[in-house]
């Protein structure tokens, strides 16, 4: 079966069996698909949101991330952040849900290519706290995962965070050459801005 037919069939069944499609690694993308199959749908029977959209020129991939509560898309019906990559013919290259030990990353709030364009900086929430990831775009794996916790957090002090798409990963600072993340989010309704050295 060539890729065009395969992609078309996959698109047709996407709405009913996306969880299976997600793990489908047997797609052969060596063939050239001359028929673009757009639009591409991803999600399930409940709420699905897109908060992150980026195009990576070198790999020719479109990266999409967001949040879902669809149990027929995510592993469970609670909030799950997701991220996937499409090639220009609409074929799924990889897709991921993320976990911080036993806690699901509940939201991918935004993303942006790093300053050198080689990786994707992702901002989200996990365990009700802001999280930052650097993604390997070709493989769909996280190069690093950072979870932020307010230093006064305790049983009685639990800040409420709201994360959006405000992330920028500067791989080489103009002053000292070090890599830094720049983030902004709401903590207890106050706008916070963070500069954080990357590992």
């Amino acid at each position, binding site marked *: 079966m060539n890729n065009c037919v395969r992609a078309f069939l996959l698109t047709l069944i996407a709405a009913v069996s996306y969880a299976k499609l997600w793990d489908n690694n047997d797609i052969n993308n060596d063939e050239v698909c001359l028929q673009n199959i757009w639009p591409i749908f991803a999600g399930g029977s409940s709420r699905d949101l897109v908060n992150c*959209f980026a195009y990576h020129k070198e790999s020719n991939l479109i990266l999409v991330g967001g949040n879902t509560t669809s149990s027929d898309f995510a592993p469970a019906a609670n909030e799950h952040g997701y991220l996937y990559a499409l090639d220009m013919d609409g074929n799924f290259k990889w897709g991921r849900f993320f976990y911080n030990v036993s806690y699901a990353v509940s939201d991918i709030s*935004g993303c*942006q290519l790093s*300053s050198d364009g080689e990786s994707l900086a992702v901002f989200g929430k996990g365990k009700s706290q802001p999280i930052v990831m650097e993604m390997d775009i070709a493989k769909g794996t996280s190069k690093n995962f950072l979870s932020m916790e307010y230093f006064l957090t305790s049983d009685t002090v639990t800040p409420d965070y709201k994360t*959006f*798409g*405000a*992330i*920028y990963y*500067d791989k080489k*600072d*103009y*002053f000292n050459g070090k890599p*830094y993340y*720049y*983030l*902004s*989010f709401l903590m207890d309704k106050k*706008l916070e*801005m963070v*500069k954080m050295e990357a590992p």
Partner: protein
Amino acid sequence: MNIFPDPIDNQVFYLTGRYQGNASIMRFNKINGRLRWYAKLEKMSIIRAWTQVPLDRHFYACGDFETAYAADNINTAEHTAAVFRMRNDGEMMWYSTFSGTNALATASKQDRCFGVSFNS
């Protein structure tokens, strides 16, 4: 809310989005987080997307203007999409709104902008 760099000044970054009820743009020093300038757009409620011109002092951004400011239902509140071009010193070059009727919705003016791109 977005953070983006300046293509011709690597010592600063911009924070865009919504602040105190209005669309806003803030320009900060990278090294110490000091605010260089802040633009508050009275005729926009939020900036959702931006794009830059390589090796140029200008950028484009878009979002929308919630005309009935106090509306608490996002599905019925009226929105007008807006786009503008700004220079990196905060000077607004032009600003334009666009909207139309929505035959499928009960509420009119449901126009919002979620993406903008520059093609050289």
